């Protein structure tokens, strides 16, 4: 108990430090450039992280449901901790997308009263709010976990992930994003992230979780290869970027080191706990970079079309009746974007530490009540 409290305090301090660092950089960015996450691409690392925060939160909600039904016995009694993680990640996702993505964050609450039903962003907004409320109720609810609540939270979580996959899927004529497998990729990524975080909660000692993560990672690797082969067949820009383009090193490193290697380590029975930890960290990084690769590959031609400068002759190949942009923009990761993501990670740690403390205190008080009643 003491050890958990000390860990919790450390997490809170680290989270606050990271958050303050991110906040200072964000404020400096607002004063100078004024662009949230200034790069030559509209979306970059911060968006991949938003999807990962939201996905991981949803994955945890699904793991909490499975735990309620006894699939992961090592997590029994820790469901409130899982919901604390879900809630912390949802809060972080919300803050990330509002402050790093939106040019006018103060206007985001407008969506509560003037949302458009045809926009998937609105659906995402309201489904995120729904799962946040459900997770909060599940976290605050003392005693045995409610199966109904767990089911509702898991349904809302799945809906969030599907909507977020469709946000990219419905964009007109974008390589890779228009893939029918986008929803499957997002679901697998969310589940892998949720299981990996739950594995940390279980002290790295759940064989079932390890197999689930490994399975999800292998499935992701296979799908990405299938996508690549399909892309090569239709000569898509994304596949060219992954095979010979500037994203190729990142893509292959992600598939091998971020997906296949951790899967093998997690499948192996003899892997030491330290090896499981390394595999888990690699799995999280693998999913983050997998998301980033998909986002960047889809955007590359779009970003190239958006870059126009005075005095330059804008030459692009392609027949005039098509709109085939063959120029590719290189993604430039900005310091501010990294700082924003670090700040967001700080928020996730700090909020989780606070919520976990509430859940733990309630659990202690509850066990004390049970003990005194039995006496």
């Amino acid at each position, binding site marked *: 108990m003491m050890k958990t409290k000390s860990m919790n305090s450390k997490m809170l301090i680290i989270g606050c430090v990271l958050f303050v660092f991110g906040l200072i950089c964000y404020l400096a960015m607002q004063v100078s*450039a*004024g*662009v*949230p996450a*200034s790069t030559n691409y*509209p*979306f970059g690392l911060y968006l991949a992280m938003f999807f990962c925060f939201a996905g991981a939160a949803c994955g945890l909600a699904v793991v909490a449901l499975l735990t309620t039904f006894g699939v992961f016995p090592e997590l029994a009694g820790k469901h409130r901790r899982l919901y604390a993680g879900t809630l912390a990640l949802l809060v972080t996702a919300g803050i990330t997308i509002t402050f790093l*993505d*939106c*040019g*006018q*964050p103060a*206007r*985001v609450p*407008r*969506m509560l009263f*003037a*949302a*458009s039903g*045809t*926009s*998937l*962003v*609105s659906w995402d*907004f309201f489904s995120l709010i729904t799962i946040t409320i459900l997770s909060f109720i599940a976290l605050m609810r003392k005693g045995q976990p409610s199966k109904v609540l767990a089911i509702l939270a898991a349904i809302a979580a799945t809906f969030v992930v599907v909507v977020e996959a469709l*946000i990219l899927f*419905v*964009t*007109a*004529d*974008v390589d890779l994003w228009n893939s029918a497998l986008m929803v499957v990729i997002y679901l697998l990524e969310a589940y892998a992230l949720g299981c990996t975080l739950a594995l940390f909660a279980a002290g790295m000692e759940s064989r079932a979780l390890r197999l689930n993560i490994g399975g999800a990672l292998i499935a992701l690797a296979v799908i990405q290869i299938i996508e690549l082969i399909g892309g090569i067949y239709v000569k898509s820009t994304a596949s060219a970027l992954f095979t010979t383009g500037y994203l190729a090193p990142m893509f292959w490193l992600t598939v091998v080191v971020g997906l296949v290697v951790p899967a093998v380590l997690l499948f192996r029975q003899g892997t030491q706990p330290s090896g499981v930890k390394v595999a888990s960290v690699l799995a999280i990084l693998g999913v983050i970079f997998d998301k980033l690769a998909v986002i960047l590959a889809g*955007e590359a031609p*779009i970003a190239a*079309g*958006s870059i*126009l*400068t*005075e005095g330059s*002759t*804008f*030459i*692009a*190949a*392609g*027949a*005039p*009746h*098509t*709109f085939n*942009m063959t120029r590719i923009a290189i993604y430039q990761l900005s310091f501010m974007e990294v700082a924003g993501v670090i700040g967001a990670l700080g928020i996730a740690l700090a909020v989780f530490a606070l919520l976990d403390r509430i859940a733990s205190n309630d659990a202690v008080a509850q066990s004390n009540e049970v003990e005194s009643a039995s006496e």
Partner: protein
Amino acid sequence: MTRYAMAIKTKNCVGCNSCTVACKVGNGLGPGLFYSHVKISEAGTYPNAKMVVQPILCNNCENAACAEVCPVHATYVRPDGIVVIDQDKCIGCRYCMIACPYDVRQFITDPDKGYYDEGLTAFEKQAYGHHQKGTVEKCEFCVDRVEQGKLPYCVQICPAKARIFGDIEDPDSEISKVLRENEHHVLNEAAGTEPCVFYL
């Protein structure tokens, strides 16, 4: 019912970029901002290679993907077909930029940035005032001018008379006649957005 559209005679276009400049000056667009530009591409191979000039601007689509994805109704299609953005409503999420199949939307990062290191000129101070940082903008067929019965800047300035603007619902309008009498195409028809910029 009025439905505004533009026809561009690509064979007339000489790629002088007068439209680009007129649009920038008229709409007060700072460095790096373009509502309209001219794409110059090469077609064919030597000895039959040729240079193709293609003006690009917002297609003010009938089924505007940007309006559909906007989460707060900031982008909408007017009854006369012009797709406009309410800057006061835009939250700057940039989803419309990604949804647009023509890459013609611009994100305003720094409206106070001018062309000179010494700061904004008197013209720039006046011209850039209406832009809002962190919002998205695009060509709106110079809607303010159209409401006054004037032509968009790019149409008025074109020295080769390559651009024709008008109401395609009016069978007697110049644009209707030109479209009736000439073969034409739209960009990225497969996107299903029903663009209102036609290339002859």
